[in-house]
């Protein structure tokens, strides 16, 4: 069975909510839309206090090419445009909407009927990318990179295939798994749209082998779509990393930065993104909701919720049986790469793939002890780096040495720290080094 070549670890899967069908979360009383829901320039608000909005009304336009517009996910009145705490722990500009009723923009097709690509022959590459751009779609796996940018290859680069990331290698998360089981055809049409947008006729869907039901269903449904192949993958973290997935599926390795996947002919999109693209292009529905896994060992009802963007996390937890007594840490995303949240009032955004509640005991790190140079971090690193060395160089502020040892190639997957028998905070140190070295490289380029 295929997988990536270098390193990797196998954390306990804990897919507690895998059997729980997607259910719709209730509307919030107030929805808060951060202007920073994507990588790149923040969105610019186009509404002001007192404006009436419907579901799908544009709240903010893209702040540049690498940016995305933001639409209201609720109907009601804009109560203020002000700062709000977001998942990164900072206060940033946001639009607050007080919810009244649930009125949708008329242009949105809310019927469940499947629209196939053959029903819409007039759609060409440019039209598809334009629709995706206007719908505010970003990478839904958590990276939140604006989708239309990836679908507009830089001059000189030619895409050869599209790979759908349905790996979901983060422990606990099951949103993508459920999406495949409940909306397989929509995903396949979404993939067709991406293929058409970048002008290729080969599409892959990479699924880890711990989801045999999804592999079987997608393989069955894919028979009706030309050029689409489902690729079962061996379970190994971080297979959902873009570079690891390309290596696993088509055996090509993206070189070190500044190279990007398109340099080896691959365009990778998350399975949730493919679904959102289907809805945007075929149903005229901007990105206003997503599936989020609310889970944790003490959570009463681990669930997969279809929730509107801007819903506060507190409400999502309440829908799953409330916050357990022994909660110690709330993580936005999965346990390997997610962010610990400062507060439950933080609203969900386009990149919220999961909400993981850890009990107090799980949440605490063990005391680190000296490095015993066991080299387990070196064999775990999926990028072939030397985490023990990079973390030491970062600590000693040897930026030159860290750059020479390719610290900027680190994808921050956390495999090194996960595997370290001395419980050393390897990735904490490497992050400091990586951002410093990247700053140095940028300032050098600016000169």
């Amino acid at each position: 069975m295929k997988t990536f070549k270098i390193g990797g670890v196998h954390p306990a899967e804990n897919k507690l909510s895998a059997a729980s069908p997607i259910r719709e979360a209730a509307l919030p009383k107030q929805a808060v839309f951060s202007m920073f829901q994507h990588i790149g320039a923040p969105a610019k608000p186009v509404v002001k206090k007192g404006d009436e909005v419907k579901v799908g009304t544009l709240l903010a336009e893209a702040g540049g090419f690498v940016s995305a517009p933001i639409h209201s996910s609720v109907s009601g009145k804009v109560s203020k445009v002000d700062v709000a705490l977001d998942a990164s722990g900072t206060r940033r500009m946001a639009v607050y909407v007080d919810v009244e009723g649930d009125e949708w923009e008329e242009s949105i097709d809310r019927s469940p009927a499947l629209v196939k690509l053959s029903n819409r022959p007039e759609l060409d590459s440019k039209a598809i990318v334009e629709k995706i751009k206007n719908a505010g779609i970003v990478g839904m796996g958590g990276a939140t990179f604006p989708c239309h940018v990836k679908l507009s290859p830089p001059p000189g680069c030619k895409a050869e295939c599209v790979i759908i990331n349905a790996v979901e290698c983060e422990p606990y998360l099951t949103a993508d798994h459920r999406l495949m089981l409940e909306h397989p055809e929509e995903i396949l049409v979404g993939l067709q749209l991406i293929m058409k947008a970048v002008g290729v006729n080969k599409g892959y869907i990479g699924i880890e082998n711990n989801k045999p039901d999804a592999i079987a269903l997608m393989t069955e449904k894919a028979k009706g779509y030309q050029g689409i192949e489902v690729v079962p993958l061996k379970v190994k973290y971080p297979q959902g990393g873009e570079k690891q997935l390309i290596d696993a599926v088509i055996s090509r390795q993206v070189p070190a930065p500044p190279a990007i996947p398109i340099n080896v002919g691959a365009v990778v999109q998350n399975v949730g993104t493919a679904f959102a693209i289907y809805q945007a292009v075929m149903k005229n529905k901007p990105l206003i909701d997503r599936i989020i896994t609310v889970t944790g060992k003490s959570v009463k009802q681990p669930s997969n919720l279809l929730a509107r963007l801007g819903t506060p996390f507190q409400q999502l937890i309440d829908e799953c049986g409330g916050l357990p007594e022994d909660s110690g840490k709330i993580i936005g995303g999965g346990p390997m790469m997610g962010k610990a949240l400062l507060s439950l009032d933080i609203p969900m955004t386009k990149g919220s793939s999961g909400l993981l509640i850890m009990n107090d005991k799980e949440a605490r790190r063990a005391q680190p002890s000296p490095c015993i140079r066991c080299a387990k971090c070196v064999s775990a690193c999926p990028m072939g780096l030397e985490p023990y060395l990079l973390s030491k160089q970062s600590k000693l502020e040897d930026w030159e040495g860290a750059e020479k040892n390719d610290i900027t190639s680190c994808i921050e997957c956390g495999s090194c720290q996960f595997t370290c028998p001395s419980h050393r905070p390897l990735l904490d140190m490497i992050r400091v080094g990586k951002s410093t070295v990247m700053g140095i490289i940028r300032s050098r380029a600016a000169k």
Partner: protein
Amino acid sequence: MANRLIISLSPHVHGGDSVQKNMYGVCIALVPALLASLWFFGLGAAIVLATSVLSCVFFEWAITKFLLKRPGCTICDGSAVLTGLLLGFNLPSNLPIWLIIIGALVAIGIGKMTFGGLGQNPFNPALVGRVFLLISFPVQMTSWPVAGQLTAYTDAETAATPLFIMQNAIASGDPAELQKLPDATQMLIGQTGGSLGEVSALLLLIGCAFMLWKKIITWHIPVSILGTVAVFSGIMHIVNPIYAMPHVVLMSGGLILGACFMATDYVTSPMTGKGQLIYGICIGLLTVIIRNWGAYPEGMSFAILIMNAFTPLINTYCKPERFGEVIRKEEKK
């Protein structure tokens, strides 16, 4: 509760591996050989091993507390116990207690704590202790009791070990000397003279297999050392029969103990597979060279210590294969 959330960076989960698991894992892997040493050397083995382990643990504790004045306790991590066990395994079973204590002091005091404790030492502490004793007290350190004297300690009857026989054969240039070697099965099981822990090749290999299974070590170092010794001594044997057969060389002295348990020490061996292979091959070559042409019959300890010194250099030049490197190389062409 909500205002008391724990905030930390990812990853938020850990694999559950620990220093203790690895150190005690190696200790468990040494148990079969330990039982064999008690079976063959009885009382002497028990005294030597107990003294060695206890004094290593004591010195680690005392130095941490009174000299370094560090808070906390490092003896629980298992590394001092392991050093003590390995040091004991490298000594003859008739060594007086005071010598063992000196060896432990040098191993822990000079070999390890001088550099800052666990993880900082450039040389394998147990081997530092052993080589110190070997050079300072060559007579006591090279008289090897005959196996099977269960109640004897310092009064045990001694005899030549296979290594001495081999060296004699080379010195005299007469291959007939090699006839005095015990047969291969005896050496495999361990009914020969030698250091405590190096007598039973079979049980040491079982311990090594356990460590490979538990992923405490990788195959690179043991295989490269044993392979190099087998090939090199095989060539020597074909060229001139005064050099012993390769399988006898492999099972004699501390070769297997060294290859599986001493050279694989995390702290003092290289970090990448490629580096470990270079390290292992060099240890193998050095061991055969010292055994055949050096002043000492046993070369394993010296070979490992010499290569320990090269480990930082190997780490500097042997980098793991970076992701995407293949393409980068192609681009350069």
